[in-house]
């Protein structure tokens, strides 16, 4: 049986609130299909969000869902997962929410390797507030708060996650939507902390100000600038100039936090603490 995102929507919350051509819906669609692929029931999945366009994802999908404060979704999720380790915890965040205000929480959630699947929807901009530059906005881009172009460099959130200890890390784009679905599927199955970055388009808040007039132009930009990590292995630095990598970057095994804590409880109950 083919699955359609429509099958998982809270139909009374549709149509959704995102702008025409927004990539958030494409990313969410891939997440929903991935959850379906893994075979989790609606009742055992909880989807937690923060603030911003990415935070509006979970209100429209028929799982257990709650939205939290700006950047803090991973901390709420950590408390939730520790008390309900049997549930499948998914966090959907954004570049402002996850890499900006919530950056410290992201670092430490990666470090703990707690079994939370995080999808960071990177649309290069604060969309909900109307197009201010984020920590992941490419240098030189225009934004309402960067009328002369940003002078700040952006950074690679996947490398940060890897450095902080995430045990599954990957990146895809809204254009590469099947790859995105595959990566999220693997991330959901992975035991430990996983981060999948979804590069998406914000035609209204970012594209219009940065010489990409239509959603289609932005998807073409994704197609032309993304290089699969496997293909990149055989390419020269010159060939990779101005490109970004997609695909699976990290997939390794390490002790998972809630499992370790359960062991700690068993030890404390049998032996007592020192």
């Amino acid at each position, binding site marked *: 049986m083919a699955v359609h995102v429509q099958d998982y929507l809270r139909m009374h919350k549709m149509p959704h609130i995102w702008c025409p051509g927004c990539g958030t819906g494409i990313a969410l669609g891939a997440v929903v299909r991935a959850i379906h692929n893994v075979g989790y029931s609606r009742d055992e999945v909880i989807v937690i969000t923060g603030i911003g366009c990415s935070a509006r994802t979970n*209100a429209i999908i028929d799982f257990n869902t709650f*939205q939290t404060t700006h950047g803090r979704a991973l901390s709420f999720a950590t*408390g939730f997962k520790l*008390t309900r380790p049997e549930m499948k915890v998914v966090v959907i965040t954004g570049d402002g929410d996850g890499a900006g205000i919530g950056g410290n929480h992201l670092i430490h959630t990666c470090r703990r390797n707690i079994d939370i699947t995080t999808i960071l929807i990177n649309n290069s901009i604060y969309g909900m507030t109307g197009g201010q530059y984020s920590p992941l906005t490419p240098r030189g881009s225009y934004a309402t708060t960067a009328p002369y172009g940003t002078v700040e460099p952006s950074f690679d959130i996947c490398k940060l996650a890897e450095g902080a200890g995430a045990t599954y890390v990957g990146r895809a784009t809204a254009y590469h939507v099947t790859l995105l679905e595959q990566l999220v599927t693997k991330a959901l199955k992975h035991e430990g902390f996983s981060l999948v970055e979804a590069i998406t388009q914000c035609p209204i808040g970012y594209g219009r100000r940065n010489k990409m007039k239509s959603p289609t132009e932005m998807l073409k930009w994704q197609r032309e600038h993304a290089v699969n990590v496997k293909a990149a292995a055989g390419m020269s630095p010159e060939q990779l100039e101005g490109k970004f990598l997609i695909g699976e970057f990290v997939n390794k095994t390490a002790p998972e936090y809630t499992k370790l804590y359960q062991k700690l409880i068993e030890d404390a*109950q049998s032996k007592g*603490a020192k």
Partner: protein
Amino acid sequence: MKRQVKLLQGNEACAMAAVAAGVRFFAGYPITPATEIAEILAQELPKVGGTFIQMEDEIASMAAVIGASIGGVKGLTATSGPGFTLKQENLGYAAMVQVPCVIVNVQRGGPSTGMPTLPAQMDVMQARWGTHGDHPIIVLCPSTVYEYYMLTIKAVNFSEMLRMPVIILSDAVVGHLREKVVLPDISEIEIVERKKATVPPEEFLPFKPDADDVPPFVSYGKGYRYHMTSNNYDEGGYPATNNHQVADKLLRRLHNKIEKRRGEIVMTEEIMMDDAEVAIFAYGCTARSAYSAVETARAQGLKVGLIKALTLWPFPREVVEKYGDKVQAVIVPEMNMGQLVGEVERALKDKKAGVRPLNRFDGKMITPEQIVSAVKEVK
């Protein structure tokens, strides 16, 4: 189990009471003078199958406690001034989304990092008004180790009963002093559990209140799939950010759920007030000095009584009002530049009694002698 006679530190009593009240999750961040609560719960919670986690900061600690409570477990965190400031963001979330949790603020001298090891009562207004928006809050304030224990249990119970955050405002004196306490038999302690759903999932609205204005709180993962948001929300739990009627109704209800149980929530002790001509209104560690001052003054033939507030918010105005025409003056000693005294003045604005603030904010307790002198100034 029987009544237990123990020598306990205040923060230790708080931690023990949390476990007794059914708290099974603590997330925190090290800070003086509250850290003992974290240290003890790191040791004790795993023994009862609970979870302790030290988070990366105070903001995350508050978030994790709320996340755990949403998961269906009673959660508590403990902090002091600077950390309490950082907790405000998610404390407001808990108030809005109606998630039970308890925040202990062991007050120390401020402003800012101030005097980390010295006591103060400078966060009384922050506890009430520290977050943005206009939500109500319950703030309990112990003056003895025994009260710290009992009010911690009350705090957990109120939070579960009313689906809201409750603050315990202790201080470095009550947090660190050791006293002999006689704890009640655990089987005699009333423990409140959150309300369960009374309708099947297809009829369930997560924020449809019962007659007491409190909606049941149903754990996720048991067939009741629903949404929660800190945006203005309807009874279905969905954002209704531009709906004026929904906003009006929600905010009134958040306040009403406290007002409807005001008699139970507002706790005070009236000591030697029957024939009092001068009242001392005190709370926290200052109530200890005030009690001693009453004894001294009475020994000198002065008719002085003490109104000790165990609940600071909602403010016990009805108790203060009651004496407004009976006493000449109400002295309000506080370890700040005058915070709760404003509420006392408000309660007495049409009454005969005058209000006399007595303030100290140098990290030293107000002494009984200072209070006795203030009493003599009235006479």
